[in-house]
């Protein structure tokens, strides 16, 4: 016996993945995205890495929702909104949440990517804001690209633009609320060093 909602959820995920890998104008990165002060924070990460939870924690603190699934980057390295309802997991099941304050009913402008945080959940960990520089700063985005094998030139060009213009960190993180607070302090004050 199939649960229709579960089947449709899986179909939507597969279609989204296909669109992301086949897109000709954008480099799709598996990532959460929020806007803050006219620029974007990109949170690359695989499924089950807590992207949606962290994105929602940031939105509750005033960040603008752009995506909990994909960061579509154009050739200039700007990120576009991927407007869909956030997908939360509870008891192993995914479900979409409809929140009017997410502003999914109106178009959002593309944003320059000013921050990228590749975060791995580790209980009790604090985010360390040690920046990654140069070509290696593009690797967190490449590791989460859904289209690099189909469109390597486009992806390398887009992630290079981001690597040149953004502050990029890779760190462990603990609970989503404390992480959101630390990220917003980082984004509000500029570059930080050391754990927060």
């Amino acid at each position: 016996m199939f649960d229709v909602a579960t089947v449709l959820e899986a179909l939507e995920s597969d279609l989204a993945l296909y669109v992301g890998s086949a897109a000709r104008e954008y480099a799709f990165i598996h990532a959460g995205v929020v806007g803050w002060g006219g620029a974007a924070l990109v949170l690359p990460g695989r499924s089950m890495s807590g992207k949606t939870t962290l994105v929602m924690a940031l939105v509750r603190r005033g960040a603008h929702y752009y995506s909990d699934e994909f960061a579509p980057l154009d050739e200039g390295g700007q990120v576009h909104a991927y407007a869909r309802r956030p997908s939360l997991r509870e008891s192993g099941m995914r479900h979409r949440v409809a929140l009017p304050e997410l502003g999914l009913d109106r178009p959002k402008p593309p944003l320059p990517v000013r921050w990228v945080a590749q975060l791995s959940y580790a209980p009790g960990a604090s985010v360390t804001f040690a920046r990654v520089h140069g070509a290696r700063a593009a690797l967190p985005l490449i590791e989460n690209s859904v289209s690099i094998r189909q469109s390597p030139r486009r992806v390398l060009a887009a992630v290079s633009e981001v690597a040149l213009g953004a502050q990029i960190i890779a760190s462990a993180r603990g609970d989503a609320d404390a992480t959101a607070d630390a990220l917003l302090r980082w984004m509000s004050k500029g570059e930080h060093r050391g754990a927060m």
Partner: protein
Amino acid sequence: MTLPKRAAEVIEHHLGSELLAYHPETHHVFALGPIATRVWRACDGETQVRDLVQAMRAEGIAVDRGEIIDIVERLIHARMVVADAGQSVTGGSYTRRNVLAAGGALLGVIAVIAPTAAMAASCAPSGAICSSSSACCSGTCTGDLICL
């Protein structure tokens, strides 16, 4: 020793003095630091290692022959450059894991595997080869580059 030639199929993108390079068959993506990029650019199948060392020193880049050979060995193993038979001067036995290993960071040579769309949307199970913790379901990629 003559430096090998860059593989024709490799797609490269320059970031100032650094480089991203993608091999469409092995799906390795290399991030090369300034010294490794300088070595990469010299890989034309004609330049001698000793000439490159001299040229780099003349440019104020402190480098020795061993560093250059180690960089070249990594690139040879990853098929980013094409060596003639028997050109592996150290007899290096790089495995896929060696190519991805963090030790390359000291040489300015870091590699990751470009994921398929499905890989990018999922996490690697325990025991899978990884290049960073974010790729693992457990959130931990060990020093041996294996997901916990």
